[in-house]
């Protein structure tokens, strides 16, 4: 119960194509996170799955049943809206009961479910209040409670934490993870916060301009991003990209020339790099270390951000920016030159189209 399968789902609003053919298989009990920049179609895709938006073409199946022409209510899914969408004139209890009353559920059963959900979400003291008399975090719980009482086969959450302050967000995030572990229901979670995505997801779906860029576990996306966009999107601060040219390529081995004129010897794995080809070298700010190594770069420090536990260096290398995150506290003066070693760093290579080149370091 709770498998959702999308095949070539397309959606246009008039002449505007928003989703360009989405294929996705969501397993039962999985927590899948949709991430992507604003306007990429996350909400539209979620609403299409919910049945609030009619798709232009393609198929949506829930537990093997095609639901293209099934109404939102009959898809067995529950939605938590970004604005919570609680009925302002009803008490919390009435909000929770509303959907169940629609289904003509016996009163005793409704009460039982409300009490269960209220206990789970710790909103029992507020059942008599109206949404306007609750804090943002409490409203958020009620919104989740309204979804839970219906015992749906899947939960759809559209940026459920975006109206909460930073601290509450972190704790609610943890509660959501616990809730998922407890309910074992399928959840689709939309966010543009990649930390939320990394911490919550079983699998992340990265969307851009209505297309899926990559699907994978958080660590898969972090370790082997399929293209430059995903590499730049997952991880904070985002990955450094340096333009490089292949200078001397032999099977399994290549020498890259970097914009500052330095050379870098890399193990090209199974990949045969083309002599003279331009490529992008990606390296995460946290993977650079201080000092000279077998492979190192010389960069000029432009700005320093001391965060206490770590130091963020904004450096420059042959006109390209290079961000370095060093653990602990360091002192540098702007303008000084430093050596950065790549020896411990996983390197990522992307071709001119931005696609990943499979190499080992």
């Amino acid at each position, binding site marked *: 119960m709770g498998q959702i399968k999308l095949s070539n789902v397309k959606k246009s609003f008039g002449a505007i194509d928003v989703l360009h053919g989405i294929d996705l298989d969501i397993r039962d009990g999985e927590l899948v996170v949709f991430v992507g920049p604003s306007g990429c179609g996350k909400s539209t895709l979620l609403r299409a799955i919910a049945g*609030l938006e009619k798709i232009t073409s393609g198929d949506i199946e829930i537990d093997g049943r095609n639901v293209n022409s099934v*109404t939102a*209510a009959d898809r067995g899914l*529950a*939605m938590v809206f970004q*604005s919570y969408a609680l009925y302002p004139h009803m008490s919390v209890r009435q909000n929770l009961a509303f959907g169940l009353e629609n289904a003509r559920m016996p009163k005793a059963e409704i009460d039982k479910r409300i009490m269960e959900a209220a206990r789970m979400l710790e909103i029992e003291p507020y059942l008599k209040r109206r949404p306007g008399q609750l804090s943002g975090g409490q409203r958020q719980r009620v919104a989740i409670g*309204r979804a839970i009482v219906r015992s749906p086969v899947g939960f759809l959450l559209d940026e459920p934490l975006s109206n909460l302050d930073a601290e509450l967000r972190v704790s609610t995030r943890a509660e959501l993870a616990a809730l998922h572990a407890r309910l074992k229901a399928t959840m689709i979670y939309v966010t543009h916060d990649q930390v939320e995505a990394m911490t919550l997801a079983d699998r992340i779906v990265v969307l851009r301009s209505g297309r899926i860029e990559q699907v994978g576990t958080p660590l898969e996306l972090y370790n082997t991003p399929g293209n430059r966009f995903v590499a730049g999107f997952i991880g904070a601060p985002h990955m450094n990209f340096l333009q490089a040219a292949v200078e001397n390529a032999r099977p399994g081995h290549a020498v890259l020339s970097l914009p500052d004129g330095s050379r870098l010897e890399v193990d090209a794995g199974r990949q045969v790099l083309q002599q003279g080809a331009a490529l992008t070298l990606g390296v995460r700010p946290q993977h650079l270390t201080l000092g000279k190594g077998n492979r190192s770069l010389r960069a000029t420090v432009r700005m320093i951000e001391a965060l206490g536990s770590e130091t963020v260096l904004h450096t420059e290398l042959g006109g390209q920016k290079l961000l370095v995150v060093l653990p602990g506290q360091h002192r540098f003066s702007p303008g000084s030159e430093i050596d950065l070693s790549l020896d411990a760093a996983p390197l990522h290579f992307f071709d001119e189209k931005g696609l990943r080149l499979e190499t080992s370091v």
Partner: protein
Amino acid sequence: MTVSNADKPTLPERLGTIVKTPVGVVMGLIDAPMRALQRLTGLSGMALFFLAPNMLIFGIFVLLPLGINVVYSVTGGSALFLPERTYVGGDQYARLFDCGNYLDALTCQEDAFWTAVGNTFWFVVLQVTFMILAALVTALILNRNLAARSFWRAVFFFPVLLSPVVVGLIWRWILQRQGLLNFILYPFGMEPYNWLTDRDWSFMAAVGVSLWAHMGFYTLILLAGLQAIPKDLYEAAAMDGTRPGRVFWRITLPLLAPNLIVVIVLALIRAVQVFDEVYILTGGGPGTSTLFLTQYIYETGFVSQPRNPGLAAAASILMGLVLVVLTLLQLGLGKRGENKGKRR
């Protein structure tokens, strides 16, 4: 601002200067006397100074006539000028209330007054009920994603912009014996009928024409209220599997209630004052079948022979009391709505 910009002002800057310069000159001129005045009167005195023009106009054109009206209502005779009138105390009121049986206007000394009261009562009940229902239904339809929505919205609002006299004339042309309605019905075998000389039809025409003339205004308020209801509540209701009727009764109506109450009270206040378009349409007839309070007051005070300004004044004070009650109701409900808004 950079130096290069400073010597070449942009168009908005130039316009700003054009507006600012005369204001600056005037301000400079009145600055000194104002300061002197403030030193003389203190800060609260200044507030009174600025309020005075408004209060003066309000006093002369509203408060004073109101007071004079009260005085008239305790005087008798047909003279128009106050010094020529005699004091009669509460006689005018007593005359209005002198009835054998309050349920039968004909047993009253001032039977026209009570006929007008009865007519006005039924007019208010029917006109407000049907108009609000029609406005609500229209607003609900306009609130859908209808093609050419702004066009339809304008269509329903246009009658509101017409002068009441024009409304009355238009509908007289439609409803009179040689009018448009009979012209349309004639091919269907209807004999020409003078709708406006039939007691029941003319009353219904008064209700219908006034409904037509004012409905657009209330439709617009209700439509604004409907559009203020967040769309995602309806989506949540759709996810909850709510049937359309239940969506209306449990979501739309409660959330529209504050607007609806305001609209009803406003409509009540205006319906009690019904006069102009109906007066043009039927002149109060046939007989007294469309005689309403305002017309009664006007005719008693200025038209009838002998005229009786005192009696008219007394009747208008009674009508004023009804309006005061309705206005207080509206203010009270408005305040409650505001407080509710704050909590949300």
